[in-house]
């Protein structure tokens, strides 16, 4: 079974630029999550999708962050404009709709904003 795929693996941008991350979840997983992990901290949920609908985006800084999952499979997370404090690893995870609820994580994208 293929895992959660994310790209790019690394990205360095200047502040005020924009950036986009892509995630392809495990086949058949209806739930998709984007987490932000700042160095030295645990992952923090940004947004949760169930199929192509948003379940929870309460911690997403909506003035600069946006995410979509148009066909209920792949998802993109965008930051525009980026700030220095956005430097973090962005993790995508997916889980099944029913059954065990553990989430499977992708390798993440390490974003550095300079």
């Amino acid at each position: 079974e293929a895992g959660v795929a994310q790209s790019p693996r690394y990205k360095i941008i200047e502040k005020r630029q924009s950036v986009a991350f892509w995630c392809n979840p495990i086949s058949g997983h209806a739930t998709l999550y984007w987490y932000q992990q700042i160095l030295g901290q645990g992952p923090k949920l940004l947004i949760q999708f169930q199929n192509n609908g948003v379940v929870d985006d309460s911690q997403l800084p909506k003035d600069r962050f946006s995410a979509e999952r148009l066909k209920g499979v792949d998802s993109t997370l965008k930051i525009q404009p980026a700030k220095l404090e956005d430097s973090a690893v962005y993790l995508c995870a997916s889980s099944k709709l029913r059954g065990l609820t553990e989430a499977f994580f992708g390798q993440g994208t390490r974003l550095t904003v300079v």
Partner: protein
Amino acid sequence: EDKVVQSPLSLVVHEGDTVTLNCSYEVTNFRSLLWYKQEKKAPTFLFMLTSSGIEKKSGRLSSILDKKELFSILNITATQTGDSAIYLCAVERISARQLTFGSGTQLTVLP
């Protein structure tokens, strides 16, 4: 607001030692507690605990949950250098299929 506190923040041991990692939590409508191992970037799933007092075991790793005292422990016996990683604890509510993570314990196992 859900809260997950892990201790210690970091731990350095030698190969062969046994370690115990702690996770305490406060969450409304608790559903489950999960342990993950994070090497480099991607957390990998270790255990999910839903019932008190039932030990989950996988090789040298084991974990148990105490829902009365609101904590869990992760034990690693006969540690190896490959156990060096950040161990993350997370809790899930009944009402929401999402995880709230602690800050993790950084374990370093020296040869």
